[in-house]
């Protein structure tokens, strides 16, 4: 295979040699089950993190006090595509393994 052939076909090659992603394969099934059982979907699960709950609490407090709610500046904060849930630290000092 020439350099040019490799460059043109590398996307297909990468797909062919990629390891089997069990999570990706099960994702559709998990989401379907979640919907069927009325469980929160992936966006809902993402939103119900302490990051957003804190924002919602603050907004609720402002509303209760009759203050015009301030728009949260999320543009500079964590983004959905890069957000990592906080890792709990065990007493030993070793972080827990996080299973997505």
């Amino acid at each position: 295979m020439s350099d040019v052939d490799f460059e043109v076909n590398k996307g297909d090659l990468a797909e062919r040699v990629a390891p089997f992603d069990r999570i990706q394969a099960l994702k559709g099934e998990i989401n379907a089950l979640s919907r069927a059982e009325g469980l929160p979907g992936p966006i809902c699960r993402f939103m119900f993190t302490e990051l957003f709950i804190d924002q919602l609490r603050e907004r609720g407090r402002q509303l209760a006090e009759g203050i015009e709610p301030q728009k949260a500046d999320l543009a500079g904060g964590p983004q959905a595509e890069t957000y990592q849930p906080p890792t709990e630290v065990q007493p030993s000092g070793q972080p827990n393994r996080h299973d997505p």
Partner: protein
Amino acid sequence: MTREELDRRAFLSALGRYAGGACVTCGIGGLFPGQVRAQAAPATSREVDFYERLPDGRIQCGVCPHRCTLADGESGFCRARTNVAGRHINRGYNKPCILSVDPIEKLPLNHFRPATKTLTIAVGGCNLRCLYCQNWQHSQTPPDEQETFDLTPADAVASARKKGLDTIAFSYTEPVAFLEYAKDTAAAAHRSGLKVVVATAAHVNPAPLLAFAEHVDAFTITLKGFDEEFYRRMCGISLAPVLTSIETIKHKTKCWLELVNLVVPTYNDDPRRIGEMARWIREHLGADVPLHFARFVPMYRLANLPRTPVPTLEAACDAAREAGLRYVYTSNIAPHEGTNTFCPRCGEVLIERLGFKILDSKLRRGACPKCRQKLPGVWS
């Protein structure tokens, strides 16, 4: 030679030659890094189509408005063209540094054969000096000083055919810097029935542009801002030739045209100036020319800036729509509804996109299925 005749370039060139001679005398060597031996034109080069020989022996490049005047051995502003013994040579011929299979939406082109893929080709060099260049490693390096592929125009067409692609694109770096190779490849592609699309900053003279456009089906032109100061400070060129090129493509060729504006926070994100740009587009090109506002990503010499905030991009879109443009998009951001194509009459979502991916298309023969409004573009 009088003081007026000895410009800075000539002075430095002469100084280099004297110093080179001194080095030879000392046994150190005669050439500086990057200096080209006048007698040795590499096999991977091609004579430039547009230049003239000056009475003093130098040559003047005619490809772009820089009109570089070059003595023997000197390279132009684009870093790709060199005076080799009185012949103006492009050193990047047959030497692309990037080959990639991309969705056409990445160019970006949203109204030209959606969901097709392109064989995208780039060669090193550029006749701009954008401080925020997204591909500076390639664009700001001479074409023969980086890793390259050996790819003749015929090979490029054969590779695209073998991969089942029916479009060749020139993007990533500036096609004006490798115009000779791009033109020959585009001509070969057209002879084989392939389409050709080009992403460029359009800092090019009208004659070379029109000669190239004969073999091109669609252009995406980056209109980087709408004031001279921004173009001078951030890109090292002037705005006027870019506007001339855009009008040339729109009115003197049959090529499809879309425009891109990369919104750099604090530099070109003033909605009033964006509105001014959009009004110019509407008045000189028409309201149907799609305009993309691309999100800036910190890069090169502007790595200290943040990404363009989403509200800034939305404000830019609003300003362009208020000025009367019908097809305004956001780019480099997903998910965002600004990447979708809406019917300008009934507001129906006609093409739903996620980044460069088309999720759903309701267009029927280039028209809205609900109100039959025809959309401008090339849809098949």
